[in-house]
């Protein structure tokens, strides 16, 4: 039978962003898949070379609005390494709380998108409803829902407002009891299981070599989490688990992310108990010494890295961003080959695509 080439994108409901898959189909089976990205390329790294160090913080939150706090924190950390600044303890705990809240919120948005991909709009609306609670918490802390602009080089912008601990713990309790029932909509549905199991399998060796990172990598059996194995801020003070699965299919990636939400709630509770009093910000020199520094964090999508070069001036000489989705999308052909067109939303939904950070 003749093969058909279908362009899935750039405007497409499944895409979660602006990119194209040029798929070659033999009937319903995919024989070739070529990702075409670059629609959102803004030359972010070049722009940064003409901005002062504090001016880059709001720019970095626009790399991915879903996990904006992680990107701002990553940039702040990289700049602090370059400028040689030591962040006070209270600021570290505040940053950890904000980042974990951001992680839960990003995973909820992923769950909503997965629901629409598979045709269940009820899951979409339930996940978005819970996400609204978390966005309200963000507004209380940072003043904004999504592109939060909260970390600063040398600390955070402001201290936690009053009664913040009470509000956060209330929301976490609601998440763990009521929302757990709604996750069962997925887990107990044999339709969901039959659509997600044994789909898009990636083995352990392939995950390491081809650069799959984050929850998708942990679903293939690789036990590595930047928070635990290369700790930054105060992540080595907490007692939490890193969920790992062996199967490497779409359902394993789904389970890992769901479990991560509950582990983030654990971290937040422990952070509130251990947080000391003190200053939340220190003064920072304006000009950077000559040299290059690298920092990496665990983004909700995987391991993100920034490499900065200082030249003695007040703007960075080079700022390189490595986004986890950029490398994951290079795996598109491997993930899709041999599966049906109808499996494509399930596989791509389980990868959690975000195009802003991919194209920069």
């Amino acid at each position, binding site marked *: 039978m003749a093969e*058909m080439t*279908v362009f*899935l994108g750039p405007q*497409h*409901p*499944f895409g979660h962003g602006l990119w194209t898959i040029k798929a070659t189909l033999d009937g*319903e089976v995919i024989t070739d898949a070529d990702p075409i990205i670059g629609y959102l390329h803004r030359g972010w790294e070049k722009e940064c070379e003409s901005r002062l160090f504090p001016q880059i913080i709001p720019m970095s939150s626009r790399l991915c609005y879903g996990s904006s706090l992680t990107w701002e924190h990553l940039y702040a950390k990289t700049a602090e390494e370059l400028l040689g600044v030591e962040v006070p303890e209270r600021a570290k705990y505040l940053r950890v709380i904000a980042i974990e809240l951001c992680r839960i919120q990003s995973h909820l948005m992923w769950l909503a998108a997965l629901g*629409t*991909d*598979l*045709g*269940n*709009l*009820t899951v979409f*609306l*339930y996940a978005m*409803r819970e996400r609204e609670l978390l966005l309200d918490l963000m507004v209380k802390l940072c003043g904004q829902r999504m592109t939060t602009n909260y970390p600063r080089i040398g600390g955070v912008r402001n201290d936690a407002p009053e009664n913040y601990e009470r509000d956060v713990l209330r929301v976490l309790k609601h998440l763990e009891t009521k929302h757990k029932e709604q996750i069962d*909509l997925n887990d107990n*549905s044999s*339709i*969901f299981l*039959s*659509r997600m199991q044994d789909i898009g399998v990636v083995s352990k060796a392939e995950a390491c070599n081809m650069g799959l990172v984050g929850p998708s990598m942990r679903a293939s059996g690789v036990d590595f989490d930047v928070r635990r194995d290369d700790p930054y801020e105060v992540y080595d003070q907490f007692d939490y688990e890193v969920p790992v699965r062996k199967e490497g299919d779409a359902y394993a990636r789904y389970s890992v992310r769901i479990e991560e939400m509950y582990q983030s709630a654990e971290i937040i509770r422990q952070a509130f108990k251990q947080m000391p009093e003190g200053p939340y910000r220190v003064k920072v020199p304006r000009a950077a010494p000559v040299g290059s520094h690298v920092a990496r964090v665990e983004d909700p999508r995987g391991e993100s890295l920034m490499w900065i070069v200082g030249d003695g001036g007040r703007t960075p000489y080079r700022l390189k961003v490595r986004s986890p989705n950029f490398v994951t999308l290079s795996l598109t052909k491997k993930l899709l080959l041999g599966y*049906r*067109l*109808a*499996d*494509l*939303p399930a596989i791509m939904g389980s990868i959690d695509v975000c195009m802003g950070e991919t194209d920069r």
Partner: protein
Amino acid sequence: MYDLYSFSKDIVDLILWIVCGILRTVLNINSFCDWLESDNVVGVLVYIIQAVVIFAAIFIVCLTMIWQERKTLGRIMDRRATQVGPLGYFQNLADGMKTMVKEIIIPDSADRMAYDWAVTIVIGTGVLLAGMVPLSDRFFLADYGTGLLIIFAIFSLAPFAILIAGWAQNNKYTLIGGMRACAQMISYEVPMLMILVATVLLAGSLNINDIVAAQQDSTWFFIPQILGLFTFLVAAVAEAERIPFDLPEAEAELVEGWQTEYGGMRWGLIMLGDYFRGYVAASLGVIMFFGGWDGPYLPPEIWFLIKVFIIFFGMIWVRGSLHRIRTDQILNIGWKRLLPLAILNLLVVVTLKVWGVY
């Protein structure tokens, strides 16, 4: 008894009395009025009035079904749905007006004749079927002996037209959607037909009136045919292309499936045709399993509609809770699970008949 035919005849008589009275006395045209009042012409006019009344009734029922679906789906998803009018009832009228004034965009290289005619067949068979289902033993268009068989036959014309419509739009997505829809519909008609055979065995006739009368004499047929009820409801959801079986129309990959390139009122009519088919599927379920228009106190048409709405509520509930099933899994379910169940159902009915229970 005073049924729709008599009602229409009364209306036609009234109209002719007025018109011919004016023509005879004022203008003195006698031969034309004689021709108008002859039996053949009066018969045709009566049928036209009957058809208009039935179409109006079914149209309003379908609009109500759409409103029921949107409201119920909204509440399942924890949101208020339609807001226009009392309890949101007029939302469909507002949407209909919006659809009418939309710009119609037709792809340049679409095959115009197939593009227009295929969709006409799909919509036309839907409306035809809706008109052929009687609401009671006095509200019907024609009392035909073949009954349910011809309804199923017209039901199965749609897959061919959908396949051609999917090809005619010159779009790869619609082609894939059309092929999937055709495969799905054809494979789910076979279990439905087996269940029809079982019902006919129990009732002794294909005619709808006889089937309902048989249920009024003994019990409603869902008791001996409990397997058949379950199978039929699953097959009906698949025929009406609703979630969980709506992969031909799957938004996530195919945007709108085989209807992608139809715009404006064409799309509006396809949507309406979809709901007509859903109404027919639900009403067939009511006729075959739940006693048709049987019920105390209220007029039989109201009972029929209440039962149809209850079955449709079940279909909406399923739509709100489940994910989409993949095409090859849908075909597996149709051939490997539903067809054996339907045959088992037939076996049960034959056994009951042989033992003289029914």
